[in-house]
């Protein structure tokens, strides 16, 4: 067997750890073993390092250190932010929330839970291009709206939402604005103050930091609910012994990502554009999901008619290429991805989706490998597909007519 280097093109799922984060964590794991809440010197040294990391992280998103609450990641931050805002709203008799149909399940399932508890949720249309329209958001705001939660950038199709405008509208209407920025932090310039963001979720493993840690930014003055009772960590709002190495790893990864942001964005979007252009021209009846203009630098999401995503994914894996799919089989349910359905794609087309997400660790050779392998696999699967047979028959009879 010829040894093939893995082409890792699933960076929206998670990213490899960067050397800076690894070094920071390795050192911290060995040295900062003391509990950051302890009063002895080693404990206080750990606490000082955590505070420094908190300051660095806050500054990189335009926040203050005391507005950063470390969590176990994006899921926890989303749950916490939304449920807290809902509880605050409920106390004032405000039980309306505005969101979108294509949020991550961490948001959507939290909203479904609130709906069961009597909240009314408006899901904004994301249209066929995958963008929220600010005027539609403005119209949806009611006197009893307690929260607007719109993701910064979509994890499947990479579309970047008009966050500045949404922030402006929410500020004007005095409605709390939360954004799930898990796919954006470390990849796009963010300033929570300038963008009028009240709450923001992020996750370290999406920008080459460690897994199982993230944070919630919560603007000063907004009160978070306690879901766990315990010690005084994170202002007593999120008790539990501080995960010093993971926090230092997060700060190191975010510093690196933000320092290289422009350079990375240019490099990665060039790779992505070449990938998209090549695939769309070489594979007939293929489409790019989501608009092209405001798009995460690394995201290329396709649908190929007549084939199913899981078999495509596994054939790519056999060739050493890692991607993901929103087909029913890979989503773990019987329906294809809610994101693709939210764009108005029919089920049969959404089943044939493939998401390739690149990072600055990918090379031009990686893209060449994908471009050389993918069209053949699609053609081979189409060759055995009764759906493709039907599509070709229709095309031929259309041509005759």
């Amino acid at each position: 067997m010829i040894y093939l280097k893995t082409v890792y093109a699933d960076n929206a799922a998670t990213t490899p750890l960067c050397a800076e984060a690894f070094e920071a964590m390795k050192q911290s794991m060995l040295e900062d073993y003391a509990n950051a809440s302890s009063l002895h010197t080693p404990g206080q040294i750990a606490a000082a390092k955590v505070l420094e990391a908190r300051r660095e992280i806050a500054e990189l998103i335009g926040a203050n250190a005391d507005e950063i609450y470390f969590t176990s990641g994006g899921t926890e931050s989303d749950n916490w932010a939304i449920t807290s805002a809902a509880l605050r709203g409920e106390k004032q008799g405000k039980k309306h929330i505005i969101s979108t149909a294509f949020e991550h399940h961490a948001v959507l399932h939290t909203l479904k839970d609130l709906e069961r508890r009597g909240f009314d949720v408006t899901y904004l249309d994301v249209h066929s291009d995958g963008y929220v329209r600010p005027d539609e958001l403005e119209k949806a705001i009611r006197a009893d709206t307690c929260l607007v939660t719109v993701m910064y950038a979509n994890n499947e199709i990479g579309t970047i939402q008009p966050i500045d405008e949404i922030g402006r509208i929410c500020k004007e209407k005095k409605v709390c604005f939360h954004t799930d920025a898990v796919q954006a932090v470390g990849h796009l310039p963010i300033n929570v103050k300038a963008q009028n963001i009240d709450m923001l979720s992020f996750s370290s493993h999406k920008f080459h930091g460690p897994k199982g840690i993230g944070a919630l930014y919560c603007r000063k003055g907004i009160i978070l609910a306690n879901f766990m009772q315990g010690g005084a960590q994170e202002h007593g709002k999120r008790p539990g012994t501080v995960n010093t190495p993971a926090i230092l790893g997060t700060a190191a990864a975010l510093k690196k990502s933000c320092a290289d942001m422009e350079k990375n964005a240019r490099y990665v979007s060039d790779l992505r554009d070449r990938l998209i252009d090549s695939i769309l021209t070489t594979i007939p009846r293929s489409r790019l999901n989501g608009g092209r203009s405001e798009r995460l630098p690394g995201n290329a999401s396709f649908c190929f008619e007549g084939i199913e995503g899981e078999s495509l994914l596994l054939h790519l894996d056999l060739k050493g290429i890692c991607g993901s799919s929103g087909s029913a089989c890979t989503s773990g349910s019987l329906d294809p991805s809610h994101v693709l359905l939210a764009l108005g794609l029919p089920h049969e087309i959404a089943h044939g989706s493939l998401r390739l997400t690149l990072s600055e660790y990918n090379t031009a050779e990686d893209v060449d490998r994908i471009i050389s392998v993918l069209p053949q696999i699609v053609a081979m699967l189409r060759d055995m597909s009764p759906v493709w047979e039907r599509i070709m028959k229709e095309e031929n009879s259309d041509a005759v007519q």
Partner: protein
Amino acid sequence: MLYSEKVMDHFRNPRNIGKMDDADAVGEVGNARCGDIMKMYLKIEDGIIKDVKFNTFGCASAIATSSIATEMIKGQKIEDALKLTNKAVVEALDGLPPAKIHCSVLAEEAVKAALADYYKKQGLPVDPSIFGCVDCESCGGCGV
């Protein structure tokens, strides 16, 4: 691993893949909305399945179950092929993940749908107690 070696083998190298221009019977089950369609072609002589071909749109287990089902019925008498169960398909593949069992049901139904087509062409009655409900609904896979 999600799938057994057997499943991956049939997925990688599907047996009896292709179409058949001179088939004596053709059966198609599933629908694109659910994400699985299997089409089976049979060549039948003297009550024996001489040749089988299949085409499948679907996930790896849909491809593997239809592939192994063609192997299991090739050379069989019609009556014996009608006894093929989804359970036997699952066993032959050394198991399937629970969420993929419906693929094996679909493979059984594809065989029966093709044989039902043969019976109809021969003017023979298609007994539902043998052939089952040869349509998408009965797979219970997607509820469409």
